[in-house]
């Protein structure tokens, strides 16, 4: 399990490096998108690997992290935070959507409105799936 985790982080780093190399090889006329994706994946892989190594080397930290991953209160807080973030996002996107449409930024307004629709549809689908599961 531990090795599997390390392998995933190394794969992330390798994928990040490959994407960076592709970006600089001139495969596209605008490498900024590939550079952004590549550096993002590379950074995530490096941070996760660094964190995993640090945790492995510190038994006290390892115990704390393991406890936190199983702690029901942390899971509860995480769920509440996601719930709040979801509602806040809907409000912000709604305000942006209306403001953008009023000010004539139709593309931005429609994108924000569509993201609200997507979230609501996803919520409805997930609610039905969860209702069957629990």
């Amino acid at each position, binding site marked *: 399990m531990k090795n599997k985790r390390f392998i995933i982080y190394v794969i992330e780093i390798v994928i990040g490096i490959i994407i960076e190399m592709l970006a600089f090889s001139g495969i596209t006329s605008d490498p900024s998108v590939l550079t952004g994706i590549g550096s993002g994946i590379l950074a995530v892989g490096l941070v996760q690997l660094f964190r995993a190594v640090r945790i492995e080397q510190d038994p006290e930290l390892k115990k704390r992290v393991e*406890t936190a991953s199983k702690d*029901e*209160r942390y899971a509860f807080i995480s769920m509440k935070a996601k719930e709040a973030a979801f509602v806040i996002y809907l409000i912000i996107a709604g305000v942006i959507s209306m403001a953008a449409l009023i000010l004539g930024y139709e593309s931005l307004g429609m994108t924000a409105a569509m993201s609200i629709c997507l979230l609501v549809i996803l919520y409805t689908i997930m609610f039905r799936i969860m209702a069957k599961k629990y």
Partner: protein
Amino acid sequence: MKNKLEEIRKQKGIKQEELADAMGVSRQTISSLENGRYNPSVILAIKLARYFSMNVEDIFIYEEANDEK
């Protein structure tokens, strides 16, 4: 929901850290339980009751008027 967790824990001379270790939760969770900021799951409530060789109702007091989500 109110509880007597802090009182019972202190009576038994157990530290928050020790109880947290035994329950497999963080010390902050025990602290939140004792302060009444967090209500435990049924599983944790039963584990706590078994740890102290008590009934769940001896530790946790459910009051309908203060019922939370």
